[in-house]
């Protein structure tokens, strides 16, 4: 065992030794420096290992052989070991990363770096407040020194600002130290903490001064302009160290000093933390410079951690876990991002598209972003989960709201950035050069995130049960990404089928989950089959698709809320990448992600309330929510409704589904949307009827569903883009489902299930076929198509059957839904909602006709003459689904009866079967007979026409009665564009994009506010100093001045 004191000794010794070297021997110097950094990293790592594995007790190190208060003492415990290891690792990697720069600037800078890392170590370890001050100062000076690594003019300015501000702060800290010494008679932190300075007259001032300076060191919003500039101006390699190392150390200082003031001071930490978290994130939304953006993000994360410290008395034993898991995510992600920024060398976010030249780096970039937002499987996910759960048990709703709001704002800019990197044109003027010393640190940090995430997950209640097997499969596909599509597709399909078989054995008695398992995994197989017609490797597609399906499976399997939420987020992440693959998908993927994250936070809030109601982590906890019951259910419903794209939350869908790739659209539309449906069904089953708030919620949701249907269907009517039309149609169909399940009767739910199954089948067919056609014809615009029936008869039949189902025309299965709907609505008494629903249902015919007419009928365009039928790999799954539709249509009783029986557990039975005939109190319906009657009659009538027909002359497209003239061109004869102009004139006001306008103005408001607010960062260092002073004054007035 190497004593921790060697960390200081070796670092300082080396620093002096470096000073003795000739200034030209930079190679030797850098080797020595790296060796030193490696050594101290080894020492702290060794201690960490001891604590973790051997359970060693905390060690106190007394310098000069005296005990406190007569000597400075250091402590090496679990926490210190962990933090110093983190700091030293960051230090080592940064040193490695910066090695070229350091060599260029000379040996002195290496010395400073060593001293800097050492000072951070001491800050963490020391138990002496004055020693703390000294090393804080040393770290400040070292920081200011290292900023000079960047020889740009603005680095000088930034360093100057930093020096002035920290000078004021440290002066203040000194006064605080001397006064607390005066009152407590000791400089030892433990003794200070035990001294109850608060109780002494005037002691509060001492504590105030210490706290304000400690907090100011953490760069609280808005008194942090000086800190941001350093992040911006310093070399990214060093910014990484500031962000990960200094912040870590600074937070630990705050943590160490927390007991000094006791609980009365905690709320101030929380408030300042919250302000910093939200304020900095707001600033982040307006940043164009990646480093500055990362600076704001760093500060916001520190704010969040400060909040957590402030809430430590409420979080109890979990504080450290929460703080650590968020800290480590911030640490690794921010360091990684800063280092990446040094590799990319772009002064604006748009330049990051260059990452696409090196897909693995893009992957790492995504990893860091997702880790920052708190997606699984990264530690921050678990930390945030635990944080929110604990806050909810303490009924601390305000802080929950603020944390989630802040996180959301953070997502706004981080995902914008990620979207830029994934979708913008690769800039030609930026070159990414591979340098192992720069790439290795990035790799390691990403690896850290995954490892730690896996490591911390069992520490959360319920986290031990998370099923990582699907994720491992995804990982395997990542590894196999170089293989051609055919192989990967086969592997994926085989894997899914295997897993489905396995899953079914677990779901034996749960019909609802079985149905959704068929939709999710069966749908996955069918839609993946369409992938066989793609060529090349299709890089990145399969891992992401499988990630989405893994998430979907996880939702079905989940027993606890954590597992559910975990899978939900995995699914969201996977689908985001799938959606953003489309050519013009960037803005749509972005809005999808934002709505998803917003929805996920609503879910999180709801889950937290459920957890807090009975400290029950299973999903069954949704059944007995006692805290803010109505709000909880509303939030959960809203959360799920972001996925079902209900009214108000639907604006992401048309673009996301419309612009996605041809086989991604069916995945996200036919399958992914059902995740929201599954969630809603689960929620409503647990919620049940009869509660006052619940019933009101259901009533509102019923209206929302009805209006969603209307808006979705009307929106589809006026689309010219085939896939957008289908996307709007999805909104409408999901509105039906929301409405149906909101009815909360057996009939309503049967209708809901019918719609779910139907929508899965027909929307998969439609998106597959139309997607295939869109690709083949090279246009989304329906008015540029036409006449495809002759070229693609099989596609036409598939689409025809689908639209018959959508329209609810007997004898196909769509009618089952309509019939159940009418009966459910009249039984329930929701007449007007019902009327809206049926109005919308008939509007569906408008867009269905437009779709099939514009694409398949009418005039064939010149450039499509040589078209062939679309790929059989698209048609095969479509026709398999058609077989499904036909079976469902001919034997609805076979499927609906078991569902009805399952539902009769939850709802009074309102539908019974006699053979193939269904009865309600209102009427009856016999799908099988209808099928027989219609088929027979149709065949007879067809026979009649054939019998009466004469020899038929088949004519060409322009052989039409055209006032005895010829049409000029097909384009001028094909009636499709704005075909419902008259309708638009009459009811077009209903499609005013009110919701879009609302969200647009909301985001404009946010950005304008951020833009207005950031004017405080005027760039003038005196202003920044003034901010510091004002911060002190305001804090004083609030904390002690009675404000």
């Amino acid at each position, binding site marked *: 065992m190497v004593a921790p004191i060697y960390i200081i000794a070796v670092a300082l010794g080396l620093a002096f030794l470096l000073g003795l070297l000739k200034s030209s021997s930079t190679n030797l110097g850098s080797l020595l420096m790296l060796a030193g950094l490696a050594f101290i990293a080894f020492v702290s790592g060794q201690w960490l290992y001891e604590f973790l594995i051997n359970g060693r007790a905390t060690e106190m190190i007394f310098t000069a052989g005296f005990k406190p208060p007569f000597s400075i003492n250091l402590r090496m415990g679990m926490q210190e070991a962990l933090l110093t290891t983190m700091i030293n690792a960051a230090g080592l990697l940064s040193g490695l990363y910066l090695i070229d720069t350091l060599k260029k600037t000379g040996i002195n800078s290496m010395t400073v770096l060593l001293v800097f890392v050492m000072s951070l170590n001491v800050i963490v370890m020391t138990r002496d407040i004055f020693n703390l001050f000294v090393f804080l100062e040393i770290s400040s000076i070292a920081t200011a020194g290292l900023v000079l690594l960047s020889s740009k003019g603005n680095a000088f300015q930034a360093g100057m600002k930093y020096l002035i501000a920290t000078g004021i702060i440290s002066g203040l800290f000194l006064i605080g130290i001397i006064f607390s010494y005066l009152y407590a008679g000791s400089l030892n932190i433990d003794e200070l903490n035990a001294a109850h300075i608060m109780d002494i007259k005037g002691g509060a001032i001492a504590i105030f001064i210490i706290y304000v300076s400690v907090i100011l060191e953490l760069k609280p919003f808005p008194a942090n302009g000086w800190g941001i500039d350093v992040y911006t101006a310093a070399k990214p390699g060093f910014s990484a160290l500031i962000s990960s190392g200094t912040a870590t150390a600074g937070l630990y200082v705050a943590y160490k000093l927390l007991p000094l003031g006791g609980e009365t001071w905690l709320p101030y930490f929380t408030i300042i933390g919250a302000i910093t978290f939200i304020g900095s994130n707001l600033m982040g939304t307006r940043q164009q410079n990646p480093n500055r953006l990362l600076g704001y993000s760093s500060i916001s994360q520190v704010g969040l951690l400060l909040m957590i410290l402030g809430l430590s008395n409420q979080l109890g034993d979990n504080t450290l876990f929460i703080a650590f898991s968020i800290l480590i995510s911030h640490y690794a992600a921010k360091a990684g991002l800063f280092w990446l920024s040094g590799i990319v060398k772009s002064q604006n976010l748009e330049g990051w598209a260059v990452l696409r030249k090196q897909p693995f780096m893009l992957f790492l970039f995504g990893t860091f972003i997702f880790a920052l937002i708190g997606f699984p499987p990264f530690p921050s996910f678990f930390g945030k989960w635990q944080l929110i759960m604990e806050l909810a048990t303490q009924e601390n709703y305000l802080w929950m709201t603020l944390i989630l709001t802040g996180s959301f704002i953070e997502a706004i800019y981080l995902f914008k950035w990620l979207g830029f990197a994934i979708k913008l044109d690769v800039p030609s003027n930026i070159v990414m050069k591979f340098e192992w010393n720069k790439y290795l640190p990035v790799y390691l940090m990403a690896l850290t995130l995954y490892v730690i995430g896996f490591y911390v997950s069992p520490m959360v209640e319920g986290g031990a049960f998370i099923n990582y097997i699907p994720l491992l499969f995804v990982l395997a596909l990542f590894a196999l990404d170089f293989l051609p599509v055919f192989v990967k597709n086969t592997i994926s399909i085989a894997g899914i089928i295997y897993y489905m078989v396995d899953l079914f054995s677990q779901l034996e008695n749960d019909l609802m989950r079985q149905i959704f398992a068929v939709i999710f995994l069966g749908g996955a197989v069918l839609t993946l089959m369409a992938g066989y017609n793609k060529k090349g490797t299709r890089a990145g597609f399969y891992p992401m698709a499988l990630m989405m399906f893994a998430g979907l499976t996880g939702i079905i399997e989940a027993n606890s809320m954590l597992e559910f939420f975990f899978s939900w987020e995995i699914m969201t992440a996977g689908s985001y990448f799938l959606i953003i693959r489309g050519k013009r998908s960037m803005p749509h993927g972005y809005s999808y992600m934002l709505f998803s994250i917003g929805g996920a936070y609503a879910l999180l809030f709801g889950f937290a309330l459920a957890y807090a109601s009975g400290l029950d982590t299973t999903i069954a906890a949704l059944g007995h929510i006692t805290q803010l019951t109505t709000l909880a259910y509303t939030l959960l419903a809203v959360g799920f409704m972001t996925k079902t794209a209900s009214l108000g939350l639907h604006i992401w869908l048309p673009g996301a589904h419309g612009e996605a790739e041809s086989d991604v659209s069916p995945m996200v539309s036919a399958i992914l949307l059902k995740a929201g449906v599954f969630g809603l069904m689960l929620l409503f089953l647990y919620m049940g009827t009869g509660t006052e708030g619940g019933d009101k919620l259901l009533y509102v949701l019923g209206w929302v569903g009805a209006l969603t249907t209307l808006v979705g269907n009307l929106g589809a009517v006026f689309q010219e883009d085939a896939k957008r039309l289908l996307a709007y149609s999805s909104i409408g169909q999901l509105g039906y489902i929301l409405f149906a399940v909101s009815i909360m009767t057996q009939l309503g739910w049967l209708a809901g299930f019918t719609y779910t199954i139907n929508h899965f089948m027909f929307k998969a067919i439609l998106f597959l076929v139309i997607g295939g056609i869109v690709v083949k014809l090279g246009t989304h615009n329906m008015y540029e198509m036409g006449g495809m029936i002759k070229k693609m008869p099989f596609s036409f039949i598939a689409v025809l059957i689908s639209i018959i189902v959508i329209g609810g025309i007997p004898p196909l299965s769509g009618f089952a839904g309509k*019939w159940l709907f009418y009966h459910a609505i009249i039984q329930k008494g929701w007449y007007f909602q019902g009327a809206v629903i049926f109005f919308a249902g008939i509007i569906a015919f408008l867009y269905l006709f437009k779709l099939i007419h514009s694409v398949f009928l009418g005039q064939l365009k010149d450039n499509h003459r040589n078209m062939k039928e679309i790929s059989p790999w698209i048609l095969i799954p479509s026709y398999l689904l058609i077989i499904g539709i036909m079976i469902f249509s001919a034997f609805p009783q076979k499927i609906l009866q078991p569902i009805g029986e399952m539902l009769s557990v939850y709802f009074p039975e309102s539908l019974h079967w006699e053979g193939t005939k269904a009865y309600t109190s209102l*009427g009856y319906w016999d799908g099988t007979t209808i099928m027989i009657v219609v088929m027979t009659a149709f065949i007879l009538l067809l026979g009649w026409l054939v019998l009466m027909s004469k020899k038929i002359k088949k004519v060409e497209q322009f052989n039409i009665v055209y006032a005895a003239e010829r049409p000029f061109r097909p384009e001028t004869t094909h009636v499709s564009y704005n075909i419902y102009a008259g309708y638009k004139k*009459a009811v077009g006001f209903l499609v005013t994009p009110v919701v879009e306008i609302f969200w647009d103005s909301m985001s404009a408001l946010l950005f304008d506010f951020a833009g207005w607010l950031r004017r405080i960062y005027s760039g003038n260092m005196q202003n920044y100093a003034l901010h510091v002073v004002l911060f002190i004054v305001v804090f004083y007035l609030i904390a002690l001045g009675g404000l």
Partner: protein
Amino acid sequence: MDYSITKFLWTLLGLFIVLNWGMLMSSTMRRIGARVSGRFGIPWYQPWIDLTKLYSLKSQVSHGAMFFLGPVFRLMGGVGIFLFLPIIYGSDHWSNYSFSGDLILILYFQFFGMLGMALGAGEGGHPHSAIGISRGLSQFTTIEVPMTLAVISLAIQYQTLSISDIVAAQQGGFTTWTLWTNPLATAAGMLSLLGAFGHSPFNLVKAPNEIPIGPPTEYHGVFLGVLRTNGAILHVAEAALFMNLFFGGATNWVELIVKTFLIYFWSVFVGTVFPRFRIEQSVRWFLKVPTIIGIIAIIIFL
């Protein structure tokens, strides 16, 4: 559930009667229209002659498979409504195949023919066809609003959606008809019927002299014959539906003939008086007066 041959033959007979009555009704209506303008009009047997001629034309062109199937779908739509409608109350023979579904089935079976016709005409490739269909569908969405409201109102009133039960509830004399027991629903339904029959002012699907003659522009000969056959059946079947819903149904053929005639006459009567709407006027109109009446028809039951 009776799938026997006898049942089939009875139904076929019923269909035959309805077809002929439909043709007679249409010629009568045209004669009435002629008399209004001071003419004699067509002979009463003209529809039969026209039909014979259409079926006997000697050349036929086709734009494709869907063009060919369109009229079949259309005819199936009309025949289907007839098949699922209990045409004579209390009669086993004339209840057709109404045991397979209730009112909702008929409401949605209307779309069967519409869709098929739309697709068939669409494949014809004539611009007027598409324009006519787009108008027809647009108008139909709003026609169905008062109709839906009326149906919901009836369902609340009678607590059933079975047509036979609705008719049964109206038995017992003139005053027990829905017309008197639920006049608002009847009003909404009868206003929506104006659109469903497509006479002036709502004849903008075919819109003679404007987009001559809308969807069937390309249809001729046998196709047109099938369409005309359907027209005759459909008019009677739809009128019979309204008769069942609002006017006490019919217990025998005579009653059916009188009632369907009067119901159909209502739309012809309005048609001879009013000129054609533009599409947006029609859409707006249906969303105003008839819809409001329909809403009130529900509100009074709340």
